[in-house]
């Protein structure tokens, strides 16, 4: 009897779960009005449960909601429509889920634009979906330059950062400041390989030398081999450039400090760092490290005001991904307002070539040639703990890298729009 009850429960639960997923079938339909479905739907598709959950995740959805609220406050009754919705899905860092969800968001939830999408394979897959569905897509979370290169398309825009911008900023600036000899360590997958190539190019162009470049396993928690190799090299490198990200970066920096490489005169430069990484280890572990940041909350009053509003909603300080999501949503809505409709082609027309200046993107232009959004970026250095006056105030901005310098020239990408 007990086994029968168990069996019954199991079968009923299964049945309910399977049935719950139903009623989303049927062939896809179409339809067009001035504002499709009489509402604008912004969809945030990102990682809400895995490694990117903290630096973007659910808080980016909040940021987008802030943008919607600000847009509605700004235009009131003059807005193209008052009916603006924000939906979201978690792609769990899996490109096949991202692919299915993107299609579903566009088809079933009538999303007019998808935002964020970290993880390169997912980002590229969604770009293809956007192209097929002819709907807009602003990628914020992924770094691959392929989005504005060979895999570019009319409806895809790359918003916040990419591997070239990160490498060019740090590589050039640090080399020019006098650290000519580099030892580069990079994780052996596409992102790491791209970063290494961009860094090497930038360093050579600035007159520096890459003494060695070693691929490391990915993921990896033990970097001692590489860290021990550095001081023994002849000539000794001035700076260790690391392209690791996330947990690997934390491991590397912890061990970098263990082996006291900084005391031996080998500075640390990081390819990609988020403020949440600094928070993981504390600023002292990273003190003196240079990197390129797309945006920093404590840079000026305008950023601080926005960061305070963000903190009121989320109890934490924003990373550049959060503010980029806000800005992307805002710029999309503004473009719709200018076009008078949310029809994709019209909005794309209003976005291409548009120059603007908002809290995230300063001196920004949306390039028509490859849909790369160029904006000012910042060369940052991590403060030692003694200089940190308030929570999360970890960065010292050394200089602003203007938009024209920071990003890869449009002709170099191989994009043909």
């Amino acid at each position: 009897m007990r086994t029968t009850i168990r069996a019954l429960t199991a079968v009923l639960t299964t049945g309910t779960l399977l049935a719950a997923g139903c009623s989303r079938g049927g062939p896809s339909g179409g339809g067009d009005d001035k504002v499709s479905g009489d509402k604008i739907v912004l969809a945030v598709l990102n990682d809400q449960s895995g490694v990117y959950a903290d630096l973007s995740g659910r808080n980016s959805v909040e940021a987008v909601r802030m943008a919607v609220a600000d847009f509605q406050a700004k235009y009131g009754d003059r807005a193209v429509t008052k009916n603006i919705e924000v939906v979201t899905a978690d792609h769990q860092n899996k490109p096949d889920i991202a692919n299915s969800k993107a299609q579903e968001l566009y088809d079933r939830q009538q999303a007019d634009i998808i935002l964020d999408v970290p993880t390169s394979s997912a980002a590229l897959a969604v770009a293809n979906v956007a192209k097929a569905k002819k709907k807009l897509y602003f990628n914020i979370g992924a770094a691959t330059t392929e989005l504005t290169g060979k895999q570019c398309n009319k409806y895809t825009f790359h918003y916040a950062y990419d591997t070239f911008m990160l490498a060019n900023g740090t590589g050039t600036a640090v080399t020019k400041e006098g650290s000519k000899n580099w030892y580069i360590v990079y994780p052996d997958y596409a992102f790491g390989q791209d970063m290494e190539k961009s860094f090497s190019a930038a360093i050579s162009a600035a007159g520096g030398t890459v003494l060695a470049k070693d691929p490391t396993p990915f993921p990896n928690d033990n970097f001692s081999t590489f860290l021990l190799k550095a001081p023994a090299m002849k000539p000794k490198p001035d700076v260790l450039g690391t392209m690791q990200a996330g947990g690997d970066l934390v491991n590397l920096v912890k061990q970098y400090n263990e082996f006291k490489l900084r005391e031996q005169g080998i500075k640390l430069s990081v390819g990609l760092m988020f403020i949440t990484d600094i928070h993981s280890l504390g600023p002292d572990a990273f003190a003196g490290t240079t990197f390129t940041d797309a945006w920093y909350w404590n840079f000026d009053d305008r950023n601080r005001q926005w960061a305070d509003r963000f903190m009121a909603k989320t109890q934490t300080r924003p990373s550049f991904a959060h503010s980029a999501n806000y800005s992307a949503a805002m710029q999309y809505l503004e473009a719709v307002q200018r076009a008078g409709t949310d029809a994709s082609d019209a909005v794309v027309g209003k976005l291409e070539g548009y120059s603007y200046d908002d809290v995230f993107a300063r001196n920004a232009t949306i390039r028509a040639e490859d849909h790369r959004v160029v904006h000012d970026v910042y060369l940052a250095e991590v403060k030692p703990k003694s200089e940190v006056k308030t929570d999360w105030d970890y960065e010292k901005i050394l200089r602003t890298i203007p938009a024209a310098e920071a990003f890869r020239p449009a002709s170099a990408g191989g994009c043909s729009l």
Partner: protein
Amino acid sequence: MSSFLQQCFNGLVSGGFYALLALGLAVIFGMLGVVNFAHGAFFMLGAFGAYIALAEWGVPFWAALFVVPALLFIFGAVLERTLIRRLVPFDPLYNFLLTFGLTLVLQDLVKREYGVQSQPYPRPAELSGSLDLGLFDYPAYQVFVLATAVVLCVAVWLVLTRTRVGMVVRAATERAELTRALGIDVGRWVTPVFAFGVALAGLAGVLAAPMRAVNPLMGADLIIAVFAVVVIGGLGSVFGSVLAGFGIGVAQSLGNLYVPALSQTLIFIIMAVVLLWRPAGLFGREEART
């Protein structure tokens, strides 16, 4: 030459972690026939235990080294009594899957509470310098880790070979029915041995906290490598697991140095080669293979 030795030493340190974890796994497998997928999660719980102990109650590293494994010992005992032993009579696959499910749950619980970002954990102040080992300097803490790992492995070895408890455990591992037939109560040692394996994983976690990133996924990446280590050493063999642990650590370290592109799969290539040469692992027993 000294840099080569330094890299070997490197390898021994990371091998120490492999050895400790493989030891726990081998002991649990030997005694219960359970392939404990959750071993990586227990390692992570050890590290997080140390972090939480410090952050919430100011328990310093040295105290955490005893307290956290003790707590995990109790946790392991509870786990064995309530869940694991129900599946021991069946095919080992089921316990493997049970521990896999447990891993997902434990990892996610920690993730919900603390997020995926790493947590800071400082090195103990007494060990923050470097030691002059004659041929080269080395961070003191890592020397401590290696020493602890070696001492623990030797201690377990001594217990297994020189004490009555160890004799019973070894007998139960190799010939369970015969041992029972001789009148020895094997059953009462099952829970303590399992709990000990878990505690050992937790201890490795505490040791790792100051030198590795403390995040919910730190065990997941490690567990596959540890499985490979145990298989290379031979699933039934405690000595094999420890030796393979240190050996693989050194191999990986040198691999990073000479063939970095290959180093990620090096451990699997080694495993495939070893299994082709000796299908039961280096020190495994043929009968444990089926």
